[in-house]
């Protein structure tokens, strides 16, 4: 566990170091890379404040320690394009990313477990063969293109769902209407992300289920005359679910990172989309903040997975890690 913690801290340090060194390693005036493209519109006092904050006249290690301190205090700098502190913008965007990835994760786990279990239960059957082939094919499809195809069919051609965004602009819905509006906007991006993460859960579940079905206690249960339904739901499914949990938590981390592309396809206002926007606008302080937040979320989810796993499966307390 301690080893894991050290590993995550190292990752965080790498992310912070990327943020710190990249603007300083670029040729030309560091001012532009510290403040972003808005630098031309800044007043002399503002420029002085930026240079003062970065402490460019000091030796690099001193600057770095100072930078670490700022980040640790949650001081992520100022977006000159949006004209407000970076942290506030990030906190506005985070709930949308969590909503999107959370929904996709729940749905893909649900379907992955169901299809994986049934496929293993009838190994070599029609469902097993088609779902296995399907998972290979799905793994070859670029996720963002899948999203574009869903937009083309369900938003452009049939106009069932909105093309972009997380809410209808300029509409002042109240109560359930507002919830319905958010859900309607959520359907296509969440479906894309669900399909994209489906095959991982499915494969793990199918494999785990095949292992469990070969165990003695399943044979015993059958020999005792327990009905097939009971064997499937009471005995096999429960035990095969354990490895899926790890995949579930690890997917959560991967999804937050992978959502960057999906959010861009659907102009969904999450942190991933913010990453893309700020890169396009060369709003470097915002870009760095978004990158740090994504990394931090990935690490938090990984850590949660490590902490929760022994609680879910007491048998692996010794073997895990």
């Amino acid at each position: 566990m301690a080893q894991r913690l050290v590993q995550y801290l190292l990752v965080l340090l790498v992310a912070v170091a990327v943020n710190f060194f990249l603007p300083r390693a670029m040729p030309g005036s560091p001012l532009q890379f510290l403040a972003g493209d808005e630098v031309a519109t800044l007043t002399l006092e503002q420029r002085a404040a930026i240079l003062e904050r970065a402490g460019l006249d000091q030796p690099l290690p001193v600057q770095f320690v100072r930078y670490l301190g700022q980040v640790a205090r949650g001081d992520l700098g100022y977006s000159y394009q949006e004209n407000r502190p970076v942290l506030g913008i990030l906190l506005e965007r985070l709930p949308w990313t969590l909503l999107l990835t959370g929904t996709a994760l729940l749905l893909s786990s649900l379907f992955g477990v169901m299809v994986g279990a049934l496929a293993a239960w009838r190994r070599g059957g029609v469902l097993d063969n088609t779902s296995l082939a399907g998972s290979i094919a799905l793994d070859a499809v670029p996720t963002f293109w899948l999203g574009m195809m869903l937009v083309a069919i369900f938003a452009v051609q049939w106009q069932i769902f909105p093309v972009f965004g997380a809410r209808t602009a300029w509409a002042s819905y109240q109560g359930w209407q507002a919830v319905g509006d958010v859900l309607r906007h959520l359907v296509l991006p969440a479906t894309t992300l669900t399909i994209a993460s489906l095959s991982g859960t499915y494969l793990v579940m199918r494999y785990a289920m095949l292992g469990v079905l070969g165990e003695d206690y399943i044979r015993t249960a059958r020999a005792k005359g327990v009905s097939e339904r009971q064997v499937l739901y009471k005995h096999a499914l429960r035990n095969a679910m354990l490895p899926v949990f790890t995949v579930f938590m690890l997917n959560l981390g991967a999804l937050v990172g992978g959502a960057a592309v999906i959010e861009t396809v659907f102009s969904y206002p999450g942190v991933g989309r913010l990453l893309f926007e700020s890169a396009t606008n060369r709003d470097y302080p915002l870009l760095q903040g978004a990158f740090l937040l994504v990394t931090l979320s990935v690490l938090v989810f990984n850590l949660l997975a490590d902490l929760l796993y022994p609680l879910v499966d007491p048998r692996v307390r010794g073997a895990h890690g």
Partner: protein
Amino acid sequence: MASAAVATKAPKPQGWRALGQALLGNPVGLIGTGLLGLMLFLALFGPLIAPYDPALSSGKPFERPSSAHLLGTNDVGQDILSELIVGTRVSLLIGFSAAAGAIVIGTLVGLVAGYAGGWLDAALMRLVDVVLVLPFIPLMIVVAAYLGPSSGNLIAAITLVIWARPARVVRSGVLSLREITYVESTRALGASDFHILFRHILPGVLPIAVSQFILAASSSILIEASLSFLGLGDPIRKSWGSILYYAQIRGAFLNGSWPWWVVPPGLMITLSVLGFALTGRALEGYLFPRLGKG
């Protein structure tokens, strides 16, 4: 490959015939090699086959498909079919180069870590863990925002992200080879570490490296597509991902040109990744004969 099998005392090498059998003697291998062959052909001869130069406008903007432009034209009147054909080379080249770089780095790191053991092994594996956890698409967006979009940056970025998995797999292969009798006896005979590593252990892990290369190539093609779709690709030489980037920002959905502007590039990406995946599966039995059929 023959020397690899001799060195590991693996079952007698099955030679070219077995390789042909694995690749062409079954539906999975046949489809996989067929797809890869087609893509390779387009990558090599694309500019000769393409009806137009995709860099020049050869028609009016947003033309619908016609006999002159089978897949219509894009927002500046460039022939989409030609973009697609010529883009094959860009997509495959970036994918291949990144995968090759990743396999060289990964194999070296895996060899050194597995063979040396001790603190060096521990340090290298910590590094691998760190790379595996970093959210790489966000990281590349950040790096590209500073360095600017170019094919070279793309290849370097993808390489630096995907070498970690092969490193770990090669290392575990080395660990199992290290204790095998012939390595022990070679060492007893006074062979140098360098000699043992490159003459005896490297050939033993080559099958692992080959199968990891195929995996790495398909994931780098997918990563390249995602990054180019985000506008991080070379704007002059468009890959399939870049075509989709322009389709998205220049309104392919608004003017109804998506069936011939958005669908084909995605299919090309999917088919080439599928080609690698199926070829990899078909090769498994040949590369790892002792594992039997999975």
